[in-house]
């Protein structure tokens, strides 16, 4: 479709469509957690506008612009997606739908799934009908993720799954979970894991939210007790789930790395700080300048790697770099925001809203999806070729 029309024509059509279809209420950038539409069976829309916006985007495939049309996307090329995103940003439009299905499972299925699986799982993700969560970490498998112990016993037509996952984001609100399950205890640890899809409503699945230092509970513990998982519910081949897991992790890391790139709600950090303080002290100003410079360079780097991926040069191990730099940068930015907020930033839900909670939340950025130290070790080994 990209050959059929010029970029400018495409832009003009999008602009007209957005003008006509994006509700006024949905043009506030949607930066707060409450503004996010996660979708799912039990989703309650915060407003009619949120529902309308989702419905209209779903009809055009705009919730997942680059996915094939048959799987619920709009079949856009990377260049077209850039135009789409820039037109969305121009009117400060909220993202119509966010989810781990879009960010993580979708890309993994598009790479490893068969056509029938993709037809079954992708369109409901694109339509926001099914909300997924990620069952990776376990109490004994954090940075050393490949040592997961949750076990799937082969019962012929199904696996009988027992074990415990932790840090399963929004598991208490999810409909389905994609999980790393050990299906061969005798194989080397990377070669005995399968990537299974499990219904959260199945008998034997339980979740328990974990209260975090930020005061909220986005993470859960998830327990599996004799859960029957049909043999069809596997992505990739049996015992080769680690390949899927790694592929998905690169997407997760790129997604997390975006947090460090640039603005919060379309505004430069410096401008946010300037508005908070009449006059920034020298140290804060110097920190803000450095952070702004690095954030701009980070944004350009994300773009560059996306362009390379489009050109067929996979970001691969470089996603470790993006994740490390992006999250460290985001933490720095929130440290500066706290310093700028002074004592006003020290109250829960005070004059500066949830600034302290946001700050505390960012501390997880360099832990979740692989710690900064694991990222540096990946770069060291795979990019620099230093001996393990």
């Amino acid at each position, binding site marked *: 479709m990209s050959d059929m029309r010029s970029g400018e024509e495409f832009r003009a059509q999008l602009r007209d469509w957005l003008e006509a279809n994006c509700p006024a209420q949905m043009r506030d950038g949607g930066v707060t957690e409450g503004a996010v539409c996660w979708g799912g069976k039990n989703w309650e829309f915060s407003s009619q506008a949120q529902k309308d916006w989702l419905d209209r985007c779903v009809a055009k495939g705009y919730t997942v612009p680059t996915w094939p049309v048959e799987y619920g996307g709009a079949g856009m090329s990377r260049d077209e997606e850039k135009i789409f995103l820039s037109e969305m940003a121009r009117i400060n439009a909220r993202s119509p739908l966010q989810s781990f299905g879009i960010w993580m499972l979708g890309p993994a299925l598009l790479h490893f799934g068969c056509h029938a699986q993709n037809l079954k799982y992708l369109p409901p993700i694109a339509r926001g009908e099914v909300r997924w969560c990620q069952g990776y970490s376990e109490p004994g498998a954090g940075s050393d993720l490949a040592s997961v112990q949750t076990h799937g016993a082969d019962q012929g037509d199904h696996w009988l799954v027992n074990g415990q996952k932790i840090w399963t984001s929004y598991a208490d609100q999810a409909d389905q979970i994609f999980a790393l399950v050990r299906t061969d205890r005798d194989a080397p640890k990377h070669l005995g894991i399968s990537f299974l899809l499990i219904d959260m409503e199945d008998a034997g699945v339980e979740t328990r939210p974990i209260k975090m230092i930020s005061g909220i509970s986005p993470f859960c513990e998830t327990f599996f007790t004799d859960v029957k998982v049909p043999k069809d519910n596997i992505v990739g081949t049996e015992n080769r789930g680690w390949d899927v897991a790694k592929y998905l992790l690169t997407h997760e890391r790129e997604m997390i790395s975006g947090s460090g790139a640039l603005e919060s709600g379309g505004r430069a950090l410096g401008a946010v700080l*300037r508005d908070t303080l009449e006059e920034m002290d020298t140290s804060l100003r110097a920190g803000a*300048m450095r952070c702004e410079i690095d954030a701009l360079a980070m944004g350009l*780097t994300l773009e560059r790697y996306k362009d390379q991926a489009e050109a067929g040069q996979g970001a691969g191990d470089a996603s470790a770099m993006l994740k490390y730099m992006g999250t460290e940068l985001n933490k720095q930015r929130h440290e500066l925001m706290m310093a700028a907020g002074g004592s006003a930033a020290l109250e829960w839900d005070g004059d500066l809203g949830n600034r302290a909670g946001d700050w505390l939340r960012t501390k997880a950025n360099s832990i979740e999806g692989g710690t900064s130290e694991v990222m540096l070790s990946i770069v*060291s080994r795979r990019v*620099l070729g230093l*001996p393990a």
Partner: protein
Amino acid sequence: MTEEEKMLGDMARGYLDGAAPVSAFRKMRDAGQTHDAKLWREMAEMGWAGVLVPEEAGGSDMGFAAANVIAHEMGKTLVVSPFLSTAVMAATALRQVSDSRAREALARIASGELTYALAVDEGIKHNPDATAMAARADGNGFRLTGKKTFVVDGAMADRLLVLARTDAGLTLFDIPGDRAGITRHKSNMIDARDAAKIDFEEVEATGEDVLGQVDHAMDVLRPALHAGQAALAAEMAGLAAGAFDMTVGYLKERKQFGTEIGRFQALQHRAAHLWCETELTASAILNAGRLLDEDPENAALAVSLAKARATATATLAVQEGLQMHGGIGMTDAYDMGFYMKRARVGAEWLGDYGYHAERVAAHRGF
């Protein structure tokens, strides 16, 4: 990078590895030379001297992104040449003017016959707006009196682009370096390259010597400075890459405690962090080259971003490089010291980190 840019980079690397490795710089340094006429002639033949000169004036007109690619490869092996001051900055300034004299000068730059230096700085920090040097109106012309410092390539350049204050603003003069009243003092630079302090004593300049319009130097000089800052950023990124390659190589071969020191996680993580920094800087430099080629009016932020990032990255690369090499890095016989000294000079030239950070902040609204 485009395929064309990659090919240009490979070609430049191939040539420079033969003609200008770090050992060639060492020989020049030991002999007290700051210019290699043969090298510059060859660069002219390859179209590098005319990289920003229009084809009708005999240039190769490859553009700013291409100039950055060449500068990057030069930085890797610390090549000494008038590329930045002449082929990038002077050529860009001259291109802003469309008279026959400027065209003639561009042709002679492209052919490698003519070198230039930019005489802008007066204080210890780059700050063109604070220029104090006076160009006093005198009959139909001007008399230039004042002092310039840190004029890179200023001791050997055939001509000087001199920024001076006139009645209602700043004016850029294009004058020969040996005009009466000019005294050039070669500076003994830590990086062993050509730089000069230049005294001007009632130096005569005519209206013909003015490049662009009287009182409007920045129309001509700003694009030249932007081009120079971007190319210098590319050169410094190349320098950082050169120092980094040496360092990673050393981590893989140096043994202590019975094993390669590259097995130690403390060093692995620092090296990995440094690589991550070089990737962000590479993006900023690519972006600056693209904008200079496609939308030069709006390239200021991109250029300052590139120079700030390159300055920080090159500084980190040579500091880590020296520390990870241990004692041998401190010796004059080893090349790491050359990288460190070149990085420090590059950090100051055409605006340091703080100068460009202020510009980024201004563009970002604080």
